């Protein structure tokens, strides 16, 4: 599972970077979104994937053996929220820039 997810993370990063290198605003935004998701998934995999138990303390007051680590999930949640904010902002700014006359592609921004 971890192997598959690692490959997926790599693919997502590749796709994201590929889109970022494009000259088109829409692809740029999609690239940002994909890279954001790739980083989230990276943290998830880096925090080890465990399927046995939820991280709750049992009735005897001890943690269960082999529980899923909650910290990476908390990190991902925070990172996704922040990423969402930036994506929303980027979308609006790119839309505004796209509305400038004679700007259709990134290359038009050179002055």
């Amino acid at each position, binding site marked *: 599972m971890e192997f598959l997810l690692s490959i997926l993370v790599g693919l997502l990063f590749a796709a994201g970077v590929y889109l970022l290198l494009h000259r088109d605003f829409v692809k740029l935004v999609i690239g940002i979104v994909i*890279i954001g998701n790739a*980083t989230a998934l*990276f*943290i998830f995999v880096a925090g080890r994937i465990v399927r046995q138990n939820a991280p709750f303390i049992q009735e005897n007051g001890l943690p269960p053996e082999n529980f899923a680590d909650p910290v990476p999930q908390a990190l991902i949640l*925070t990172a996704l929220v*922040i990423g969402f904010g930036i994506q929303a902002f980027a979308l609006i*700014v790119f839309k505004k820039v796209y509305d*400038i006359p004679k700007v259709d592609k990134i290359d038009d*921004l050179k002055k």
Partner: protein
Amino acid sequence: MGYEKIIILLTLIIPMLTAIISLFFKKNRIVNNYISIIGSSLLLITTTAFLFPLIVENEILTTQVGGWKAPFGITIVADMFSAIMLVIASFVGLMVNIYALENIDYKKKEFSFFVFFQFLMMAVNGAFLAGDIFNLYVWFEVMLISSFVLLVLGNGTKQLIATVKYTLLSFIASAFLLVGVGMIYGISGSLNMADVALYFREHPNEPLMTVAAVLFMLPFAIKAALFPLYFWLPDSYHTPKISVTAIFSGLLTKVGVYALIRCFTLIFIHDVHYTHTILMVAAGFTMLSGVFGALSKVNMRRILSFHIVSQVGYMVLGLALFTPLAIAGAIFYIIQHILAKTNLFLITGVVEKIKGTSNLKGVSGLYHRFPVFSIIFLVVALSLAGLPPLSGFWAKFILIKAGFEQQEYLMIFVVLITGLLTLFSMMKIWVNAFWGKQQEEPDRNLITNEKSLFKEHWSLLIPIILMASFTLFIGLFSMPLMKYATIAAEQLMNPLQYIEAVLGTAN
């Protein structure tokens, strides 16, 4: 006991409360001004009068937010380096805030300029105090989002275009930082800087640690505008209002440098030869390319933006030499650079106010009508270039001395060449804008002589004069600052002290 911990948190709480309160009053012009000034002044009082003496007395103070014990909760740490940075940041914050009263027009204030300004101050302070790598990431994001808004506020075409570049680069930087954080968590199972540093000491796993180090170096280098990654800075810093540029130039890149110094003295010290050599090469190229970029420009804002890049090189050089003296020099450099560079941008703002442009082709002969103002510029500019006995000279002197001790003669050569070229381009501004033939003033211009400048635009002049006198002060009496910078550097070079302060024992 509890009192000290609240003092540390106050540096975050005051700007946050100020921002929230001014959000409610953003349509009320006068109240809005007062709230922001009071907030910034309170912050300055807290850092200088309460926090700094505490740190001088106790060396390293920590607070566990929410009472969770050290490696598990979020730790806020203030050591001497953080304290110095907090003091200077809050001072510059207040100065730019006073300047912004007149410089930022009402329309922008109504669209919550001060709200984001205060959030920016909070995030900068937070980054200086973070004792946890994920926390550091979050403060970076808060800082970035506030700076995006400040950059684009006003919606000018150039600003929008600059924001696109800035947003994109910042986003890539934070994505890499997040990957680095995930990697560190994957290796060590902890996010607390002290705990991570301790884990790396006890379980050295060099290949992975080096990858993590590079993943941290990249985003901080983008934020600090190091050599191959600085192009966003001169492309975006000349577009917004000058107050915004000034606060960005003073604080944002320095947060990147701060994070570099913090991480590469505490966590990633397993293979100094490798990581710090990369930093040194980057620093050398940064100095040279920044100063060459500045030579080719004719707009004051652009020249100064390129100089930010070249000066960041000096600071990172201090880190790369990696001796207590060199790091003390880097800290000294950061302080004097923040004061001088922010001030130069503020002065550029006044030149724009007088002449309507900061392009050197359109400005000439200011000295004839504004002698005092011109002399202030000269003092600050020469200080940046590093002429004795001004503050930049001592900063460069310390770095060069440290370079000789480490026998990095090539780097010393680069430092000296860059200093010379900096002097050259400062003189270019001086000769073109201040000396030279006096120009005919256009009719719309109301500021025709120094008297009216000082009388009617005092809120622009007060910050400039105050900061210039501080620059002069740390030039003429550099020992006190050097003493604290040395203490800070010794703390940084002795990570066990930091680890012990955070975790209680150093095992």
